[in-house]
């Protein structure tokens, strides 16, 4: 029996109750970056680098804690043989097929985590300072440079922080966090941004798991 899909598509967002928020102009901005295809790839770079490049169209990071970007695709270093592959949602199937075929002869593991992690964008000249309040990572520009990825604790949530881009002191960072911790981390980030005028975010307790309640919310 085929079931009809009920509910609005934004129901798939871990942070579907949240709108992008920001502080005073030129300080900090928070937004969820939804609907990207994400894969965790376990692969010995020495054995599978060439095959990966052929299949995915970009290199594996050459050094620990680094990332590689090609267009809208990116590969983030998570561990010595573990990488997060990010691509636009529409390319998920195509990428998975290409990697399965390309890495068929190499010992590897490839897991889709598109709905396991979500990404929170933390952007602006105060982005580093806001994040410093939540983590023990050294986020000084001298230590945490553009392109770097680091897993750490942010408040009580484990997440991977990626400094995607930085220009004239304005950093664009992404936090890859597990779905169940996204709501918490969102509120913690908003709290960290309060001094620059980021609006307070009320934590939402419990989640309506039934699509009907979401539909009625929309009505």
């Amino acid at each position: 029996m085929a079931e009809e899909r009920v509910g609005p598509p934004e129901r798939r967002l871990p942070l579907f109750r949240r709108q992008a928020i920001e502080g005073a102009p030129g300080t900090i901005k928070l937004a969820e970056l939804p609907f990207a295809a994400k894969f965790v790839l376990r692969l010995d770079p020495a054995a599978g680098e060439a095959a990966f490049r052929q299949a995915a169209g970009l290199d594996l990071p050459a050094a620990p804690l680094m990332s590689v970007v090609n267009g809208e695709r990116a590969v983030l270093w998570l561990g010595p043989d573990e990488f997060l592959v990010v691509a636009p949602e529409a390319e998920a199937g195509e990428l998975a097929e290409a990697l399965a075929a390309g890495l068929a002869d190499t010992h590897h593991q490839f897991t889709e985590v598109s709905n396991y992690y979500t990404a929170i964008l933390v952007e602006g000249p105060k982005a580093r300072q806001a994040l410093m309040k939540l983590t023990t990572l050294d986020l000084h520009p001298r230590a945490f440079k553009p392109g770097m990825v680091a897993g750490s604790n942010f408040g009580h949530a484990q997440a991977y922080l990626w400094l995607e881009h930085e220009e004239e002191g304005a950093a664009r960072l992404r936090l890859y966090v597990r779905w169940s911790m996204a709501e918490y981390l969102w509120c913690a980030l908003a709290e960290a941004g309060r001094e620059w005028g980021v609006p307070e975010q009320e934590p939402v307790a419990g989640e309506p798991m039934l699509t009907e309640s979401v539909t009625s919310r929309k009505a």
Partner: protein
Amino acid sequence: MFVITCPYCGERDLTEFAYGGEAHIARPHWREDMSDAEWADFLFMRANPKGVLAERWMHAAGCRRFFNMLRNTATDDILAVYRIGETPPKVEARLPATPSGEAPLGSGNDAVKVIQPGEGG
């Protein structure tokens, strides 16, 4: 702040790590005549020295890899960090530096004798 150097990620705060107990304890091959004592020795008996101990740690919030560490349990000095499968490097434990013979940091103030692996017991 207690800083641990992950062999993959570099210097990170202690709160990112999980402790994995004593390192280099090999699970014995099962034999029919293996005694309970032998099995218990593998399961429960640890060196617990006051001095240098080889330990396993895991970078739980970062790269999620296990690695080994040589730590002086009397002073909390981290003497070496090395990857799984590597041989523990030779280290020299720092002797207590204070006049009364106690360690400047770490565990209590009994006269600290630093015991090297294989010594004492």
